[in-house]
Structure formats: structure tokens, C-alpha cells
């Protein structure tokens, strides 16, 4: 998404190769100037995201700038070392996923010309003495839009369908509202959620595409990030580091409930674009009136959308990232 924003912002002057390492090697053009390039994995580590590829050096051959995301994974570490060896302008980002620490330990971030963080909180997690630039996350506000007539008939939970907070939350969702669990990265079952709450009908949607996420979010009363209120960390990243789900929800005109941790308050402003809760009990207190207090929901939803329009449109991020790359390439 960020890459798409960059190519579009450049008006075709820049192209972006999205390089990853995985089990299905191949190259495909996603749109003009934007190529997805999966390199064949040469190793099979316990965590497949730590795979290495012999083709990584060739993938960097024609780069003017290298931006390494998930900088502390092994393949990323090699990409960083190769970029340094070739004196290629290098920026790195970290989405906060847990790693084995190998790359972090030797100070990979200090090899970057620039660290790009997607929130102030995220910036603080990167151990570096190199310059840091905060480029707030962005959302495709043309895809994620408010519904003309939002039903506001459900609460959407974003994250894995497990954990104490999720159970607590489900138990406290007003009976008039349905419950949908959106797990953008989910692949397995409902982790016994339905059997633990036989009296509630729970819709669990694994790895939904963007338009489906949009439909669910548009008609929700609120999107809740239970992980940010005490449950386990989202395995693909701390939610505050790029805040994609809250941004999508806000772009759909739906307020967000989250905790104060992990930099989410940089995106969700309490009682303006959503609610920031302190603990599961606070979360329950916030949920209970929502079924009836539609005025507040609509007010916060409108404000959230306006905030997205102003600051977090993908085009804005694209321009900022493009400016960053251009500076590095000079």
C-alpha cells in the first residue's frame, strides 16, 4: 500500500519493487511501476519470515534507494548489509514484529541513512543514533469510505479471536449488537470462541480483503482493538506502529476503541475520533451505552473521517515517502 502510494505520488517517475522471500517465488506487476517480487527461500528457519535468499543481491542491483521494512528479520539484515556494502541509500522501518534479535543485537539500525517510523512510539522502539523521520501511516480513503446509510448494528473486533480481553469484551457487548471478529492475518479457526459464548452469534472473518473489511467496518458501531487493551500482541506488528486497522475504521466513519499503549493515541483521540480505554472494565463501560447513543457514534465517526481526510490519506503518505526517497537518492 505504501509502495503504491509512492509510485502514484511520483506520477510514474519512480517504480517500486516489493521484494520478499517466500515459498512461491515469482515476479508480477501489480500496476504500472509497482512490482511484487518474491525471491526463493534458500533456508527453512523455524519462522519462515527469517528465510534467506541467494537472489537478494541481484534484487538490489538496480535500486536507487533501498527501504528495508521489518528491518530486524534475518533477510532484512542481509539486505541492509548488502546495501551498505554497495553504498546504496538506505532507510529502514520496523513494524514491531517479534524477532530472534540477531540483527537488532549488532545495531542494524545504525547502518541506515535514515530510519522511517510510522509513529513516534514506533520510533522509540528502534535503537539507533541515526536520524529518524516519522511518516504517519496512511489509508486508501477512496476505498475505505463511510456507508451512505450505516446500519450500526455490530461491534467489530480487530485481531485474533482469543484472549481474556476478547472474552470479556464479547460478554459485555450489548445484546442488540452483533459481533464480528476481523482478523486480517488469521488463517486458522475461531480458537473456541463460539463454544465459549454459545449464547452469542459471532461472525469470524479471517484474512478478509480490503473491500470486505470496509463493508464490516462501515456498518459497525465501533471497531475495537482488544489487543491494545491487554490481550496478546498482534503477531504481525504492534498496532500502534502503523495503525492500519484503526485508520481503516476511521476512514469508514467508524470510531475506534483502543488502549493507551503502543502509540495508538497518536491516531485515536479520546472522545474525538474514538475512545481510549484503560482496562477491560473501562472497555465494558464504554461499550454498554453504544447501542443507544448513536449520536455520539455518528459524531465521532464524522470527526474520524475528517481527520483521515486531513492527515492520513494514502496520497499524503505517498508524497512524504517519495520526498524521503528523493532526498536519500540525491
Amino acid at each position: 500500500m505504501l509502495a503504491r502510494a509512492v509510485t502514484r505520488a511520483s506520477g510514474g517517475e519512480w517504480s517500486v519493487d516489493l521484494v520478499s522471500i517466500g515459498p512461491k517465488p515469482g515476479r508480477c506487476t501489480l500496476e504500472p511501476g509497482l512490482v511484487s517480487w518474491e525471491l526463493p527461500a534458500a533456508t527453512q528457519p523455524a519462522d519462515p519470515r527469517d528465510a534467506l535468499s541467494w537472489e537478494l543481491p541481484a534484487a538490489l542491483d538496480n535500486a536507487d534507494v533501498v527501504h528495508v521494512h521489518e528491518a530486524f528479520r534475518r533477510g532484512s539484515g542481509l539486505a541492509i548489509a548488502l546495501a551498505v556494502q554497495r553504498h546504496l541509500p538506505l532507510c529502514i522501518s520496523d513494524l514491531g514484529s517479534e524477532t530472534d534479535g540477531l540483527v537488532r543485537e549488532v545495531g542494524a539500525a545504525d547502518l541506515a541513512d535514515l530510519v522511517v517510523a510510522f509513529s513516534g512510539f514506533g520510533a522509540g522502539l528502534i535503537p539507533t543514533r541515526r536520524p529518524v523521520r516519522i511518516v504517519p501511516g496512511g489509508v486508501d480513503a477512496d476505498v475505505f469510505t463511510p456507508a451512505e446509510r450505516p446500519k450500526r448494528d455490530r461491534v467489530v473486533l480487530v485481531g485474533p479471536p482469543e484472549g481474556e480481553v476478547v472474552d470479556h469484551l464479547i460478554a459485555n457487548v450489548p445484546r442488540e449488537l452483533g459481533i464480528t471478529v476481523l482478523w486480517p492475518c488469521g488463517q486458522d479457526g475461531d480458537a473456541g470462541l463460539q463454544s465459549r459464548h454459545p449464547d452469542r452469534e459471532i461472525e469470524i472473518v479471517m484474512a478478509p480483503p480490503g473491500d470486505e473489511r470496509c463493508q464490516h467496518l462501515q456498518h459497525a458501531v465501533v471497531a475495537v482493538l482488544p489487543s491494545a487493551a491487554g490481550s496478546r500482541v498482534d503477531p504481525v506488528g504492534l498496532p500502534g506502529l502503523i495503525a492500519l486497522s484503526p485508520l481503516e475504521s476511521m476512514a469508514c466513519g467508524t470510531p475506534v476503541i483502543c488502549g493507551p499503549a503502543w502509540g495508538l493515541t497518536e491516531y485515536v483521540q479520546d472522545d474525538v475520533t474514538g475512545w481510549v480505554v484503560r482496562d477491560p472494565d473501562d472497555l465494558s463501560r464504554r461499550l454498554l451505552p453504544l447501542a443507544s447513543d448513536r449520536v455520539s457514534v455518528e459524531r465521532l465517526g464524522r470527526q474520524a473521517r475528517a481527520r483521515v481526510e486531513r492527515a492520513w490519506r494514502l496520497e499524503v503518505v505517498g508524497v512524504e515517502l517519495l520526498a524521503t526517497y528523493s532526498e536519500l537518492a540525491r
Partner: protein
Amino acid sequence: MKILVVSNLFPPCQEGGYEVQCAQMVRQLRMRGHSVHVLTAAPAIPLVAADPVDSDVTRTMQSSHYLRRRRMMHAGQLTQVLAEVATNFVCPENVYSLLREIDELEPDVAYLWNLVGLGGLGLVSGLAYRGLPWVWHLEDAVPRFLCQLRGRLLPHLVQVSQPVMRGTWLVCSTRLVAEIERAGPRLDGRVEFIPAWIDEPRLPPVASPHVPGEPLRVVYSGVMATFKGTEILLDALGQLHAEGHRVTLDLIGPVQEPRLQDVVNAASLHEAVTFHGPLPHDAVLQMLPRSHVFAFPTHEREPFGVAPLEAAARGVVPVLSESCGISEWLVDRLHCLKAPRSPDQFANVLRQIMTGEIDLTPIARRARVAALRDFSIARWVPKVEQALADAAATSAGLSGRTASGHRAALMFEQIVNVTLEEMMAA
């Protein structure tokens, strides 16, 4: 010129001829007014000879366990693999040492020798990163060795390291280039052929010519092993003895295969063959003129071989495998005698000498002249000097930072080592 020499060994730390040649060239370059600093490994075992004080030799690099082969034979597989990573691919501490030397000396050019044991690929990458041009003196297939793990060439590693394999190559034989490039790594850039040389400050004594009818005295100096052809020589000697010819053989050097003594006993050659063991270089040079021929039935991939040249300089005629490095440089029946690498063929040449079919005297004379004139170090220093100057002239100035280069090496090593550990555990 300010020249930074990098070599895994530097005398008095030595194993073979490679580092001796390195030291000889360093001395010559210094004599010609160049500032030459040597970066090499700390002694793997304490030195027997005193380490001469030389402020221009820094012995701070690690040589992994490459030089302690017995230690490695007793190590577990994983230890061996990780030691080989540090030997061939990258040793971050050595990258650090190299980059620090570059910072301190600001050399015009790096002059590389044997980098096996030092994490050579990391060093060459470090030089490319700092933008320091290099000249790499090859008297063995070092670039090929650096791309190997557990004795197997890694084609992907060849491909990955190829971009940094660009510079000036001084190579002692065409077979060496062919061997390296056939295996994978391309010697990109400029390739010059420079033979191994001899460094004879004084005119060496001459061996007395062989007179037909008298016993033929044969000498060999070097490692005693199958690949060097020691058994071929012993078999040839056995044949000649069986025919009633009087031939003696002096074998100087370490015996890598103890069974060779059994071969001698089985053929009842114990009176004709003398194992002298490893001797100091000076003692070897003193022994050479006592013989008539220097037999060198070495294997085909022998990059060169200095000992036959040292013998030739003393009027001792080299009898060479017809296909080996030094054979590319000497002409059969003019400076040497060549034979296909078999006991029969070597016996045949020696037999012809003893029967007078081959007159050694003119060959010995021409061999001595050629060795002292064409293979003298003085003859080749200008060419080396020119190669260094040409390389230095390509420099666009130093770039990069030591900390970053060191960190990148650390990261590479850490990732590779852990990945290998996990793969072996699985």
C-alpha cells in the same frame, strides 16, 4: 606508494612458499622506496624463531582454526562448519582490523596474498566498500577456496561474491586461472602472469655435473604425499634399482603419509632413499647442489613450485611432471626434463640420463642461467610495482566508514552462523 599487504601468514609464521614469496616481495618493494605495511594473523602457535621487530607488520588478525588442522579433525561437525565460515567467508574481527588499518594508513592500494583462514570474502568486500583498489597475488586457487564449504563449491556464493572480485590479478600460471574460473569465480578486471620467483642475493654454488656411469643423485624438497607424487618417484626408483642402476634419492620435507616409509622398505630401497625431514630453508639450499636432478612429479593442479627453480639456479636439473604450473614456464630439454606423470615415464627419463642418452650438462647450464635471470625476483618487481601503481591510479578516494563496514560484517556472520547452526540441528 603506500601499500597495505594482507596475508594470512607472514614469516617467521610460515607453512609453505606462498608467504615466503610475499615477504620477499615486501622486502623488494620497501627497497624501492615504497611504504609497505603488512597486516597478517597473530601466530596460530607460538613461534619457534624470534619474531623480528617490524613496526610495519601488524599481527592482529584471527586465523580461525584453519591453521590448526589437527584441532579441527577432533572438532564436532558444527564447530568445523563455523570455523570454515570464519576461514573463508567472513570474520568480522578481521574486517575490523583491515578497515582500521585503512583508516590509519590511508594506503593507495591493497596488495593481497593468501586470504584463506582470514574470512577472505569479507576482506575483499571490505576493500570494495572502502573503495580501496587492490592487486591480488595468486599462487593458489584462493578465490575458489573462499567460495567453498565442507569442500564443496557453493555456486550461489560465487554468484553473490562476484561483484567484489574485480581488481588486478597477478597469477603464477594459466592453469591456476583455468582452475579458478572452471570452478566458478571469474577473475574480473586485469590478469597478469607472474611466475613464482627466486630470491638469490648471492650467486649460488653450482652442482657438479653428472658423469655417465656414476650414481645419479636425485633430490626432492617439499611435502611428501600422494598428490606431490612421492610414490611415483619411489616406484620409478624401484624400477631402476631392479634394473641394476645406481640411483639415490634425498627426500627433504615433512612426510604427510607415513606409509611412504613402508613403500621404501617393501621395494628394498632403504639404502638408496634418505628421509631428511623438514629442514630450514637455508639447509635445503645447501643440500641441493649435492644432487644432479630435482624430481618434481607433482599433480596437475600444482600452481607453480619454487623448489625446482631453486634447484635449477644451482645447476640441478628439474625433472618435472609435463603438466604442472612450473612446466608452463620451462622448456623441455632446454631448461628441464619433462615426463608424463607415471613411475614408468619418470624412470625412463632418469634411465636416459644414466645411460648418457640425455646429457645433463648443457641443460643444467641453461637452467641455471634461466633461473637466475628470468625467475629472479628483481626481474619481476617492476611488473608488480607497475600493477600496484596502475591499480592505485584507479582510486576515486576512500569511502565508507569503519564502523559501518564492521557492523555489516558482524550482521552477515551472525545471520549466517545461526542459520547454519539451525540447519545442522535440523
